[in-house]
């Protein structure tokens, strides 16, 4: 499972980091600038929750 963040859509809600603090890291201003990544299996559920939480629909879950 790959997580892809559309940085241009990020508006700094920070819900991803709130829902998945072990998965998403924000910059100092509270925006998600992460490049595509594959979370380890034990963090998949958290990653999914964080991705679904985005009010901008900026985070895509790519099932591989």
């Amino acid at each position, binding site marked *: 499972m790959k997580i892809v963040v559309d940085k241009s859509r990020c*508006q*700094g809600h*920070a819900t991803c980091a*709130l829902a998945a603090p072990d998965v998403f890291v924000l910059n100092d*201003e*509270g925006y998600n600038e992460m490049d595509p990544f594959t979370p380890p299996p034990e963090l998949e559920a958290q990653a999914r*929750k964080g991705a679904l*939480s985005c*009010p901008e629909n900026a985070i895509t879950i790519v099932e591989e």
Partner: protein
Amino acid sequence: MSYQAMSVAEVGSAPEHVPADLVIDFDFYQVPGDETDPHGAWKRLQDGPPVVFTPRNGGHWIATRAEPIFEAMQDFERFSSNPFNIPARPPGAPRTVPLEVDPPELQGFRAIAVPLLSPKALAPLEPEMRALVVEMIERVKPLGRCEFVADFAVQMPVDLFLRFVELPAEDRPLVRGWIETIARNPDREAQIAAHAASYEYLSAVLAERRKRPGEDIFSRIVKAEGEGKICPVDSVSMGLNILFGGIETVTSALSFIVRFLAENPAHRRELAQNPALMRDAVEEFMRRFGILNLGRTAAADFDFHGVQIRKGDRMLLPIHLYGLDESKFDRPMDVDFHREHFRHINFGSGPHRCLGSNLARPELRVFLEEWIARIPEFSIAPGDAPKGHSGAAMAITYLPLIWAA
């Protein structure tokens, strides 16, 4: 009143480009049923079409479903934020900054405030926030009763906010008074006076910060003035936008949460037994009891979800209806702390995302943690009933509580 009953067949009650079968008699400041259940009163709109029109308040469209609401929030080019209020501010009244500023100009204003309002910047405030909340709860706990709105929900966000902007606690009654008036007093003279007084107050605060700059948000605004990023007129507007933006909304959120918990013991007990749920509970409460009805203005002629919009048309976006839409959430009227996600747009969506969201979330969570820990069992005072109200912000205006002290 059902959606069908709201229909209005009055000839000439709407502009000619509005289909007659989409016209309803709907005054969003006074929705039938809003006194007992503001969200239930609005939910009925979702029995009808996704976009409707009302001749009230100068005439405006209303998007009723999650899809058009979200799309309009994202599409700032076709749906300008200037003007914002419905009815619109009087001609000649200055625009509210940054609320009524569209991209790309918007970004420059937001950049002034964003660094101070990131989760990282606000994290050090949490212990102070908690201490303040605990102090307030401990003061009210021995009484065994309170009118939650006046005694608590109106006061807590003001007190917290004044600390955040480093304004003296003695100014609390003044600031609270203006907010009460602006939010709830229908008297036009009183409104004008409150706006004028708050404008004067904030101008004085900015003047003081120009002389003695600090690290707070008002100091950052005057610093940006010095860098040519904002003019003094817009500084006051932005200061007021910030001052008022985060107070009435939090008052409402607190009141809806506490009203629900007062009437739903099982949810109360679940939170008491499992405090780890608090973060998700706050999100679920925001989804279920969204606060704002936002205004937009069409910047062009275009088709939108089956209707023809004309340039200048006003559009009301009830962002709380996004969270109540079955297309987004199963059983949307249920409060369920265990949903797969709580993706609401209570803080908006798109470039005007609420700048204070990273302050509001901890405020609500810390409040809930400390209230449930100290007053886990409470209910509505027997023989009495809460009262609500619709408007630009959904509100509970009266919430009589009792508990065993």
